[in-house]
């Protein structure tokens, strides 16, 4: 039997709620875009036979060989079957930042100063990782 003491906190429940909806939206997006990709309804930037001959290359060489864009430049190719799949992938990868931003006001209201600072730092770390500023050594 659950009592008040054993209940999850307000911020924890909000985090869970966003994560729950977001995960299923993200997964449904991924499956839909993948269907459009593999059925050829939307033509890919990299044809399947070409992809197959290059997927054993290092990622950096793969991108260079096929002349593919780095970082967020994929957005300009989102109309193609392969790059459309990035919408779901990026959505799922961005979900944690949304959850952190959503619980920040609650943490501030509860005057949980250490957690406010840590949450802000986490958002900054994730945004930095997502920004594409951090790169593996040049070609």
């Amino acid at each position, binding site marked *: 039997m659950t009592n008040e*003491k054993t209940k999850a906190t307000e911020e924890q*429940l909000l985090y869970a709620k966003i*994560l729950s909806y977001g995960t299923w939206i993200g*997964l449904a997006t991924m499956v839909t875009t993948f269907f459009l990709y593999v059925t050829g309804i939307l033509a890919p930037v990299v044809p399947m036979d070409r992809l197959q001959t290059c*997927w*054993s290359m290092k990622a950096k060489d793969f991108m260079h060989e096929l002349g593919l864009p780095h970082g967020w430049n994929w957005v300009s190719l989102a109309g193609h079957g392969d790059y459309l799949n990035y919408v779901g992938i990026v959505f799922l990868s961005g979900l944690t930042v949304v959850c952190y931003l959503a619980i920040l006001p609650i943490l501030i209201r509860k005057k949980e100063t250490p*957690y406010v600072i840590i949450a802000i730092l986490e958002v900054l770390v994730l945004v930095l990782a997502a920004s*594409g500023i951090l790169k593996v050594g040049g070609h």
Partner: protein
Amino acid sequence: MPVTVFLLVMLAAFAAFGSEGATAAAGAAGEHAGAAASAIPVDPAAGAAAAAASTTAWWVWPLVLFVVTFVMGILAVLGGVGGGVLFVPIIGGFFPFHIDFVRGAGLLVALAGSLAAGPGLLKRNLASLRLAIPVALIASTAAIGGALVGLALPANVVNTMLGSAIILIVIIMGTAKKSDFPNVPRQDNLSKALGIMGIYREESIGQDVEWHTHRTPGALATFVVIGFMAGMFGLGAGWANVPVLNLMMGAPLKISVATSKFLLSITDTSAAWIFINGGAVLPLMVVPSLVGIMLGSLVGVKILAKTKPKSIKWMVIGLLFFSGLRSLLKGLGIWP
């Protein structure tokens, strides 16, 4: 266990297929000259794998990935391990994809599993946000460093290190003790300042269990290493998170397992971004693997009720050891 035997047979078939591909590569050089044999140097093992891959219709690969990851999902649940830790050594060792893409997919597979499990664990107050938030900051920052270093290293070095890491994980999994309710005599100052504590309903004993942690600074330092390894190898890090949260910090086992699972959603996110931005994510690999492992996990949960988990755990450990050994030998050039 039939699924384990099935998976081993499939992997052996793929290993043999890879060797045939290597032999065929010489004869098929002309066909592939325009692509794989370009100005960009490709290591011999990768070249052989490309040749093997190009003799097979493209759609076979996502289909086989789906089947293998489906079985993997069942085994992961039955063996009590994360999907990511099985995915990277098995797919990296026996499929033609470069280890960069395998790690990118591995991170997303672990991330999706964690995102799917997270809400339920948080709502039931088994995963603790108070425990996860400080740990996640350390682990996710370190994971970025690991991902950057991992993507910069050559494949043979990554495979050698991955194989060694997997064998180490097997040793940890086989020997690490667990404690349902560790004794925490005194909460340390950092844990007190952060208020890392909680209370949850333990249904197995019908009581509310209060918990807090100790040795927090040392544990946070350990999460630097765990995060770095997770980012570098694209592994979920449950194998390391749970012992540190449980045995080092003194969180109850259920809280440790649940918080670890949720924690991966943050740690793996930061590393996944580095792989996405570095072009190391192939949708053709990611989506079937992710769906396969998630569906397999659902089936695994149903099978779990009717099986003896302990014997299966040892089979999974054996499979993991075999995959780790394969990565190590591949990296060293002994079994290319």
